[in-house]
């Protein structure tokens, strides 16, 4: 029973990470119908930049806003280089290839700048575990859960309350109408990419102390976060949190009871099943396309 509790706690922490990254997918999809296939890279770059800053002696907590700024900048760069030109040349799925291409460039540059080895990220919180309901929980894991929830809450509030948020929602609903209303939709899309990468970078520095930081840390996370986004529904914030937790727990339990090699499989299989049965996700709303 202890073990199960342990697995559930680890699963929740893991799932929240997926949720934060998945949240980023939602943001860009909502405004531009595109996804950043290099979302994992945003996370990785955030972690790497954070590591460099911390190694220079900067305090972890002060480092976070700097990394967020970097993430926002990186997202804007992705939008400018990969997404905007692809939309302009009306290439149907050119943006898929171009975000992938930019993604592998980022990974390779990171490999050459920071080396291909995985590095250790110093943990801001004590590394000794707390005992809770018979299981061990690292303080860092609790920070991850809280941080993720706070970030998503902040963005949701922003969307609903501020005028910029309303511009985002307007662009989501009808891009052309929003344009005609004087909203600079191009800027809105850039902004959503910036926001999306920022959340990913933030997620990066949250989880870096828990795992190893390396140039390839983003790839699999990005893929699983996508699974979470689909399972939960690309239009529902709540769905993403639930989806993330489901996936996280499924992974840790499969890893223990079945075999660690298979632990990546449930998420991906779940993705295929959800797409087959209910493509809009557990919490998403099915949209009827008008012809």
């Amino acid at each position: 029973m202890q073990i199960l509790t342990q697995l559930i706690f680890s699963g929740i922490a893991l799932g929240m990470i997926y949720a934060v990254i998945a949240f980023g997918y939602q943001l860009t999809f909502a405004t531009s119908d595109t996804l950043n296939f290099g979302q994992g890279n945003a996370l990785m770059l955030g972690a790497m930049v954070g590591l460099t800053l911390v190694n220079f002696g900067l305090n972890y907590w002060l480092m976070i806003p700097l990394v967020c700024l970097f993430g926002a900048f990186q997202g804007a760069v992705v939008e400018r280089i990969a997404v905007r030109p692809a939309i302009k040349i009306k290439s149907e799925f050119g943006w898929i290839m171009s975000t992938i291409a930019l993604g592998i460039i980022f990974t390779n540059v990171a490999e050459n700048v920071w080396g291909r080895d995985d590095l250790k990220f110093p943990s801001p919180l004590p590394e000794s575990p707390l005992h809770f309901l018979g299981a061990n929980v690292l303080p860092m894991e609790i920070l991850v859960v809280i941080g993720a929830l706070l970030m998503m809450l902040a963005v949701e509030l922003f969307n609903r309350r501020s005028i910029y948020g309303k511009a985002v929602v307007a662009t989501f609903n009808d891009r052309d109408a929003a344009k005609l209303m004087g909203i600079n939709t191009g800027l809105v899309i850039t902004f959503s990419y910036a926001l999306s990468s920022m959340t990913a970078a933030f997620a990066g520095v949250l989880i870096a102390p828990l795992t190893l930081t390396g140039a390839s840390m983003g790839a699999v996370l990005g893929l699983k976060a996508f699974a979470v986004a689909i399972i939960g529904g690309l239009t529902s914030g709540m769905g993403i949190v639930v989806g993330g937790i489901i996936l996280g727990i499924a992974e840790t339990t499969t890893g223990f009871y079945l075999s660690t090699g298979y632990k990546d499989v449930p998420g991906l299989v779940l993705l295929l099943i959800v797409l087959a049965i209910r493509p809009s996700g557990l919490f998403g709303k099915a949209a009827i396309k008008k012809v």
Partner: protein
Amino acid sequence: MAFRFKLLALTSALALSTAAFAADPIKIGVDGPFTGGSSSMGVSMRDGVRLATEEINKSGGVLGRQIQLVERDDEAKNERGVQIAQEFVNKEKVVAAVGYINTGVALASQRFFQDAKIPVLNNVATGSVITHQFDKDPDNYVFRNAAHDSIQAPMIVEEAITRRGYKKVAILADSTNYGQLGREDLERALKNKGITPVAVEKFNIKDVDMTAQLLKSKEAGAEAVLTYGIGPELAQIANGMTKLGWKVPIIGSWTLAMANFIDNAGPGGDGARMPQTFIQEPTTPKRKAFIDAFLAKFKPKNNRMDSPVSAAQGYDSVYLLAAAMKQAGSTDGPKVKAALEDLQAPVDGVVTTYNKPFTKTDHDAITANIPVFGEVKAGRVVFANPDDQKSAGTVRMKDVAANDALLKN
């Protein structure tokens, strides 16, 4: 490094254009993982090889010809090794090859050299079966100057069971050829002592979360964890133990000395023990000269070699080859092989002095008495046993009897 290359190329070009006699370079292939999780071993090996080559070339080369290294990165991938071996044999036409860090890569690639009758000197890969892959053939072109697993595994077991007195041990091995073959060696050695491991767990390269395997080992009551893996994953084992609040000794294969284990495991890695053929300490004049030259040329961080064992063995492998070529008077494969199997003059190496290191049937230069136990302490690898450190001034030479003694014990 780039400069050296250009210098080497320039030198060979000059030699080509000025010499009346055919002085074309001796091409030696160097295969290892220069990127990825195994790269610290690969790069150190390559640097050791480069250092030796430079020294030999500076003093006139071999048979009046300069050595030219053809380096390729196998990324620790078996299929890359296969492709590189074919490239070495058919396109680059090397006369010999050194390298191979990963057992799987070696096993997949060696047959191309064997078929082409080109000698291969494995300088780091430790899978026991590597030098016996072609036992059935009349001639075996695969040699090795690393401490193979049929020595390391019994040493590990000796340390854990006999010296430290543990009865319940868990084995954690990775899923590659290296990990699995090493695990088999460990199980065999344990059986020799009448012990069955309480848990045998597997993990993949790039795995980050070892909780499941560690929990199972803990539940089974393991008193020590025996490992066969490489740096990054081993670090995660140490970190996982810290996270679970379960601290038992880690004793495993030589890869526990890898820089990326030590750096990533933090304090959790302290106390890990592993067999080492070479510890970065200037215990003899030859070793001091080697360490100084290496540090001066490659300037590693904190003056700490990423993988001292790989560097030393890489260095030694080139000298062994050069000696064989000098003795054979040619670079022809079968002749060099014959020379290796019957080296007349001792070769002064870093790890040991090689006195008749190979015979027709024995292609392993290192025996059980040569490696000592190293221990991770404060970010470096030091002698685990103070007696070993004291006696390190005396060079230990190959002693076949030691192998048998270890296995009988």
